[in-house]
């Protein structure tokens, strides 16, 4: 308690007063984006980067503004987000179920360890030829890559979570006569949930990357395919506008996952700054 107080006062003394303002964080964030856009604009306007190949920010953002009111654009976004959601949910359900089963037994944990460590680092993109062979140029190819990549992110977190269960709590639950299901529900699940949510947040970003990659490389329908189409048509401005759009989707996904984390884990110490554990 004392230490925390000391650190806070020290910080407060060192920091300039305006950074204490509640709006300072968001304002600095916006300033950062504006600065980035200015550098982009300046680099292309001065000819440091050839605007023919990398158009100025204002031109790209104007195109993005047009995209935002186009039905074709939203149809592509919908296709990408559909692959993303189906992929992430399937991976989440499979990884959680398997993680709890493997995590509940030392034997299973040991026998699967080396296999998991072997399969996990295989980059999903290396499976593109296999995906095309199995599913062709369709959403299923995207799904295969998305599920493979996000599955391991979540599984590893769930395994860490199940390993983190307090043995005293577990023994207490056992001696109070809690059955297997009750122990999972009241002891393992609350311990694992923060890990699972972290895994989901990591997987959500990975799933978007893989969704776009599959569309770009294979040609599965979605935003990535539109990027590739614009690229092969030599339409540079629409291409970069779509690239910016994918970035914005990434930001939106991250904000969404943060909100989800806050809501699901509102009881957890990590989300309750006022309580020192």
């Amino acid at each position, binding site marked *: 308690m004392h230490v925390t107080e000391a650190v806070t006062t020290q910080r407060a003394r060192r920091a300039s007063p305006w950074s204490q303002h509640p709006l300072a964080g968001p304002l600095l964030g916006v300033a950062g984006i504006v600065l980035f856009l200015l550098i982009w604009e300046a680099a292309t306007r001065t000819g440091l980067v*050839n605007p*023919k*190949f990398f158009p100025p920010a204002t031109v790209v953002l104007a195109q993005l503004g047009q995209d935002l009111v*186009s*039905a*074709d654009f939203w*149809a*592509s976004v919908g*296709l990408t987000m559909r692959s993303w959601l189906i992929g992430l949910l399937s991976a989440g359900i499979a990884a959680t179920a398997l993680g709890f089963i493997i995590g509940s037994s030392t034997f299973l944990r040991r026998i699967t360890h080396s296999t998991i460590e072997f399969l996990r680092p295989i980059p999903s993109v290396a499976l593109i*030829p296999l995906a*095309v*062979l*199995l*599913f*062709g*140029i*369709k*959403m299923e190819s995207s799904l295969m890559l998305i599920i493979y990549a996000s599955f391991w992110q979540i599984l590893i977190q769930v395994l860490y979570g199940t390993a983190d269960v307090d043995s005293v709590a577990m023994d207490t639950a056992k001696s109070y006569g809690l059955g297997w299901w009750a122990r999972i529900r009241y002891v393992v699940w609350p311990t694992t949930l923060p890990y699972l949510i972290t895994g989901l947040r990591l997987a959500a970003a990975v799933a978007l990357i893989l969704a776009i990659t599959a*569309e*770009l*490389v*294979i*040609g599965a*329908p979605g935003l990535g*395919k*539109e990027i*590739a*189409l*614009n*690229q*092969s*048509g*030599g*339409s540079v401005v*629409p291409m970069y506008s779509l690239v910016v759009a994918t970035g914005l989707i990434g930001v939106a996904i991250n904000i969404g996952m943060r909100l989800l984390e806050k809501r699901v884990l509102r009881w957890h110490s990590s989300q309750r700054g006022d309580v020192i554990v």
Partner: protein
Amino acid sequence: MKSKLLVALAAGSALALTACSGGSAPTAPSEDGELTPVTVAVIPIADTAALWLGVDQGFFEDEGLDVTIDTAGGGAAIVPGVVSGDYDFGFSNYISLYVANDKGLDLQVVANGVTAGEDAAKDFGGVVVLDDSDVKTPADLAGKTVSVNTLANIGDTTIRSIVAEDGGDAEAVDFVEIGFPDAPAALENGQIDAAWIVEPFLTQAVAAGARVVTYNFSGFDPELDVSGYFTSGAKATAEPEVVEAFQRAMNISLEFANENADEVRAILASYTTITPEVIEKIALPRFRAAIDADAAKKLAEAAVKYSGLSKMPNLDEILP
């Protein structure tokens, strides 16, 4: 623009079709019965215009085919899709097909795709350099770095042959792999000495001041057929009547495309994102049904020499 949505929808309905394709063939009836659904995997570039145009004109329906076109990101996704039977037909350049056959895949050409342009002074593919480059003739490319979209394929094979014919050292050309869209930027930045590009990038590069050293398709052979539509050997054996119907419709489409350049340019706007101003200017390939046997033999021989084919492909078996 609307057609993008249509393609997406078509892809979706193709899924639904495969899901229920166990029974009798679905879809609308034509005068002599029901249409047979076939899928074709292509790259969304100007070269495949004849197919899109043919479908649009109803030539395939006349032959009893209900064609669904799926666009792939690149040729690499097409061959596996056709081999595995996900697609009935695919589009590829001939060297890729020779390489696939050389590696043991049984692929057969059913129709020609595109041929070197009629006008030897403005073809749809060429090697460009910056205007102040000291490369004046193809032979000067020896010792230079030249970009192609895929190594050991039709680009470097035809360019090496032209360099050799021009009296240069073909083996001394240093090829690097850079995609067509990125090659003009790499050329301007000085990362490469010359770039092999096709339309629409060729027209754009020339407009920006680049100089064409050689049009490598018509320069290799004025009658060179560059790419074609193919199917798997298994498909050709199992459903010969479907393959023949596709072949007939495709050949009609090719002739129609060759006689109606305006229609070709119009259909380009529907499935590519090339801007209308550029579409007006780009060089179109020749679309024709007949494959020139001599040029095909010459290309296959060059492929053995420069693309790493283990032996001369059996053209009688591969070509229609």
